[in-house]
């Protein structure tokens, strides 16, 4: 699937410009037929990543659980990010949204919507969700900063950023990525963690070992789903997932690798869905502890890695990109000074950092996960070999997914290991969901970088009210600075490949891997 990037960027900035000019976007209509197809059976989906066990959406950044929330929680809007209309927003819980002024974004909410536990959905829930989840202590840093929501009436909520010093237009696209929780649950975070309670198309019934059992929510605001439910199962092994699909135990699986695509193609009765995703895969440096607190050493690593080879290993599951965000995001640019494979440069930086030829460097641990992202172990071995060639002493640890996840984040004194592999996929074109989350000292999730210059550029970019100016700052100041400081190296952009039984029809897959099963049918 090719995305015309220029066209997309034009539309994105247009949408934001539109928003900035005070226009409003009305629900385009995305109604599902309420007819319930009796022959449909529940969809068995195999997730490549585990859930965290805490149902609070603001408690984690786990992609598997974000996909889960896509089924259970409601969002003000949804961003299908279709190639022909990438900036389209479909209204879900919102009736309409309107930018009243620079610091105020108004949402009119649909009436008669209820949470799965029967509570009515009102503006108070939006207020509770936004104010709680934007707190600086919440582990999921999706919000551009703290935010206040003014409840105008039961079905009108004004997102107000005046006191926090950044434009409210940032919430335009973000509205598609923030699951709405119930105000009652937010008041008591323990219940929030205990069970998921949303307004989404599917209700959580129970946890059966690694399977989360969901059933259709007949009162879903966009119409009742046609399938009776979804079984969301974590299977941490790519081969097992494929075998389950082939043997009919699964209806849809995610994160296929090149060889598996070949196999599925050779079999009757299965279809594939391929899409350039919002996810880039990165090699994160632990910047808050030696030796990678020295940018020269990080650059030496970056120039030692031949990304073409990695893409070769990856095959169809990756596509080249030269920035810290995916080409389908607002502000993407082919960064002109993006670090290229250049052994001489690598040696020069090594020598500058005081480790000529790698001599004197401690053993560096490079951590990756297996079973979730395609080919991590394979290209990890390739990267290890490339680094060893330049004189780095690398210890390569390929870990089981949950163990890896527990080591992922920065912590006081630096995260475990020295380099760690991870991708970042967020269901919105908003670039700050990556850039600010990772490179601003207020969040610095994985790399742990604290750099005043980076902070300044990130704030400048966030505070720009004119989308064109914002894009320019991202493309001409932020990206080149990241190419200099390289707190992480973006390796490539993921291509998400899903495979499913031909009988499963009408499923929509978002570019971040979330799924819309409202219109899906699944004949036995």
């Amino acid at each position, binding site marked *: 699937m090719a995305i015309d990037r220029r066209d997309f960027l034009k539309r994105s900035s247009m949408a934001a410009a539109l928003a900035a000019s005070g226009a409003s976007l009305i629900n385009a209509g995305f109604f599902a037929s309420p007819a319930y197809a009796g022959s449909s059976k529940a969809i068995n989906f195999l997730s490549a990543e585990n859930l965290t*066990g805490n149902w609070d959406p603001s408690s*984690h950044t786990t992609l598997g659980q974000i996909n889960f929330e896509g089924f259970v929680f409601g969002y003000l809007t949804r961003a299908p990010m279709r190639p022909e209309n990438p900036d389209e927003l479909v209204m879900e819980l919102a009736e309409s949204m309107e930018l009243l002024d620079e610091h105020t974004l108004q949402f009119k909410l649909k009436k008669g919507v209820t949470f799965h536990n029967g509570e009515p959905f009102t503006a108070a829930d939006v207020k509770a969700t936004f104010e709680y989840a934007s707190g600086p202590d919440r*582990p999921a840093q999706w919000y551009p900063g703290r935010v206040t929501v003014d409840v105008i009436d039961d079905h009108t909520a004004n997102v107000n950023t005046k006191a926090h010093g950044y434009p409210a237009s940032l919430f335009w696209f973000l509205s598609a990525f923030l699951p709405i929780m119930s105000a009652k649950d937010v008041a008591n975070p323990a219940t929030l963690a205990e069970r998921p309670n949303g307004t989404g198309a599917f209700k959580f019934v129970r946890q059966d070992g690694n399977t989360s059992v969901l059933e259709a929510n007949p009162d879903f605001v966009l119409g009742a789903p046609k399938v009776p439910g979804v079984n969301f199962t*974590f299977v941490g092994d790519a081969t097992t997932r494929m075998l389950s699909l*082939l043997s009919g135990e699964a209806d849809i699986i995610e994160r296929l690798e090149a060889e598996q695509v070949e196999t599925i193609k050779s079999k009757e009765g299965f279809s594939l869905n391929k899409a350039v995703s919002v996810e880039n895969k990165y090699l994160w440096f632990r910047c808050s502890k030696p030796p990678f607190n020295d940018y020269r050493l990080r650059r030496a690593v970056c120039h030692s890695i031949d990304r073409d080879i990695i893409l070769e290993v990856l095959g169809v599951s990756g596509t080249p990109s030269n920035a810290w965000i995916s080409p389908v995001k607002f502000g993407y640019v082919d960064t002109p000074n993006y670090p290229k494979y250049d052994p001489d440069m690598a040696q020069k930086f090594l020598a500058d950092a005081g480790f000529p030829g790698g001599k004197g460097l401690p053993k560096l641990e490079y951590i990756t996960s297996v079973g979730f992202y395609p080919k991590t172990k394979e290209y990890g071995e390739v990267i290890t070999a490339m680094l060893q060639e330049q004189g780095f002493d690398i210890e390569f640890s390929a870990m089981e997914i*949950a163990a890896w996840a*527990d080591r992922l984040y920065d*912590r006081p004194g630096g995260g475990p290991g020295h380099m760690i592999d991870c991708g970042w996929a967020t269901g919105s074109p908003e670039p700050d969901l990556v850039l600010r989350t990772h490179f601003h000292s207020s969040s610095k999730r994985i790399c742990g970088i604290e750099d005043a210059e980076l902070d300044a550029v990130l704030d400048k970019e966030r505070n720009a009210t004119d989308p064109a100016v914002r894009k320019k700052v991202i493309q001409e100041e932020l990206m080149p600075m990241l190419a200099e400081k390289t707190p992480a190296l973006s390796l490539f952009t993921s291509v998400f490949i899903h495979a499913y039984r031909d009988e499963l029809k009408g499923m929509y897959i978002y570019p971040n891997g979330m799924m819309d099963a409202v219109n899906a049918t699944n004949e036995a």
Partner: protein
Amino acid sequence: MYLLNFLVRRLFQGVIVLLIVTFAIFTLLRVVPGDPVRLIVGGMAPDEVVAQKAEELGLNDPIPVQFARYLGNILQGDLGNSFLRPKSGATVGAAAHDDPTRADRAEVLDLILERIPLTLQLAALAIVFALIISFPLGIAAGLNPGKWQDRLAFFAGSVFVSIPSFWLGVVLALLLSVQWGILPSIGYKGFEYTILPAFVLAIEMSPFIIRTLSVSIAQVMQEEFISVAPLRGLRRTRIVAAHAIRNASIPLLNLFGIQLGVLLGGVLVIELIFDYPGLGRLTINAVLQRDFPVIQGVAVFIAGLFVFINIAVDLAASFIDPRLEY
């Protein structure tokens, strides 16, 4: 009376052995690198939280004190809580230090008890398959020492024992479940999912059964009461059935006690390959996730099971042949 004596003595010995095993594993998991508190509170927690939690859990006490506490808990049926698995049963990762679910972890004993029936089912079926494979080969070899049946059993045993079970599992799963679609085997949705893993385990165990059978039957056949039996007008098949197999059953029983270890080892890997939700997969995952309480709980539980079954085996053997010494 000496039966009681035997039981008491063996149980006492068993308890001592369990104590040693528990202590060994307990100490081992406390001296290895990798900070358990860090695992409990998660990656993003500041150091003070770690220190506070360590104090709370009593991890700063001397090891013997901690061990005594652990033993006390075991006696109350409490094997501790998993570091990584929440009560809901899902796996966990990347949750924050102040996350309420961090305090709400699954009981290790529950995790084990949930999975043990499936593993027992797998093991039982594997033993049945192993006997089905071994009996014809072993008996034929025992009845015809030196002939082709003997050589066949010898060769089959040597090859079977040489097959890396995990490799066989991988290949069979591909051929039978994927390419030909004969038998489902990945995951668990019903009894038929047990067949293929059990068969692989059976192949792994059968050489020992074949050998024990053929050796003991050959031995029994040489004894006088068998060779004179035809003179007493008894048919050969009946003799074999009546005497030989009965006599071979004691070495077989003893073998079972020893084979249990092999079986358990096999179960670990086989469950992993077939994604079979039993004790083995729980263990391997716990090891890969460094979920110490689960590893420790499983090891203690299995050692207990092992000791218990071996006592039962000796007891059963003594019923079959009362001449055996207690």
